């Protein structure tokens, strides 16, 4: 119960189908947690429920501290890059001068200092995702959720995102990452939550999961992936 995020018997039903069923876990501060599973396993759903965007049909979610969420396709407010970072700070009641300062520093940290005045919607995809990370980072979250943040990015942009993620993680945030990129899971992950058809079937350290998956579902998932 002391971790930053705890789910107890979470179940989510839509149109009579249980999309998540009996999911329970408690995450510790520390390692980056990677959520893996095939399409439709319930990964994005799990992240949204954990973040509070969706309410579970039953079960309990307990999360502590400030949270931030980075979507696969970030929503760019129709404002400048700097104002995009300032906006959530303003929502939290951060005073104008302070939020300008924090926003400017954070933009520098993600390498967008030069684009501060540019309209966010005219940035490249990679830059937009870096801006989304800056927006999350500026809030100094204790829990950072990311839903396939590099799924539509090229390798260079992906590397940049992973660098930023390492820095945010080094700053003490608990990072929970959904990804389809198994290389990325190995590079960044500390532990793995593996979902199969709405159930949490395996959990463990990232190396153990990849080298010695203990369930048939996880073995099939890894073989299917690596066989391509």
């Amino acid at each position, binding site marked *: 119960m002391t971790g930053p995020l705890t789910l107890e018997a979470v179940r989510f039903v839509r149109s009579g189908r249980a999309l998540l069923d009996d999911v329970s876990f408690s995450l510790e501060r520390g390692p980056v947690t990677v959520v893996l599973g095939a399409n439709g396993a319930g990964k994005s759903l799990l992240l949204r429920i954990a973040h509070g965007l969706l309410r579970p049909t039953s079960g309990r979610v307990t999360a502590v501290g400030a949270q931030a969420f980075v*979507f696969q396709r970030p*929503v760019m407010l*129709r404002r400048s890059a700097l104002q995009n970072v300032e906006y959530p700070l303003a*929502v939290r009641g951060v005073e104008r001068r302070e939020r300008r300062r924090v926003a400017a520093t954070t933009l520098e940290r993600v390498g967008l200092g030069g684009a501060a005045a540019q309209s966010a919607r005219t940035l490249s995809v990679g830059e937009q995702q870096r801006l989304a990370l800056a927006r999350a980072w500026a809030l100094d979250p204790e829990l950072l959720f990311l839903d396939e943040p590099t799924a539509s990015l090229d390798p260079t942009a992906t590397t940049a995102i992973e660098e930023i993620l390492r820095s945010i993680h080094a700053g003490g945030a608990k990072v929970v990452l959904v990804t389809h990129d198994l290389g990325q899971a190995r590079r960044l992950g500390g532990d793995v939550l593996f979902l199969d058809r709405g159930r949490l079937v395996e959990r463990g350290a990232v190396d153990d999961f990849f080298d010695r998956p203990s369930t048939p579902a996880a073995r099939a998932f890894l073989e299917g992936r690596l066989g391509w």
Partner: protein
Amino acid sequence: MGEILTAVARAFEMLVRLDPELVEIVLLSLRVSLTAVAIAAAIGLPLGAALAVLRFPGRRVLIVLVNALMGLPPVVVGLAVYLALSRSGPLGVLGLLFTPTAMIVAQCILVTPILVALTRQVVEDLWLEYEEQLRSFGVTPRRAIPTLLRDGRRSLVPALLAGLGRAIAEVGAVMIVGGNIDHVTRVMTTAIALETSKGDLALALGLGIVLLLLNVVLNATAELLKEWADRDSARAGEAA
């Protein structure tokens, strides 16, 4: 035919030398319609946005009502405002009948439903895109309203211009509640109607030309703004 050509020539002459009577009428038209649209915007923008993002009992009824009000014939609005403001009406004590204020009220009633409906469309589309992100930031739908109005401004300004075009071109309502009194409540449309029936075609034509030009300018501005907004989202679409 010769008579008409003379009238056209005199109309242009009045425009060129800024005939005081013509200018006075144009300025009153602008004052009345701009004020009416400003008030309609103050009501219509927040209301339209609220209808787009908030879920409350009676929302659907309100949407149907607004859509119905959009199709109101101006003369009916004029009649209703006339009845309300006439000496024996509920607001008769205010003594507003046959004043520019009465015309502002009538135009406001005509334009507000249009602004509500157009705003609702714009904000609903934007909310579809923004909702998850804003909720992640901890923004409630109510608090999202100013954000959505601000970020939708490039699509909302054309709506305001459409409202202004409608207000300034309207004749039935302002005729009834304003009375078309010389130097007091005579605006472009009512003056055109009167001068035409009197046979003074020059002033009518001159005002007609101004009205036409004004609408061209309004529509061109709206079109440019829309293109600007589209280009921005197209670029964002490319990126995404």
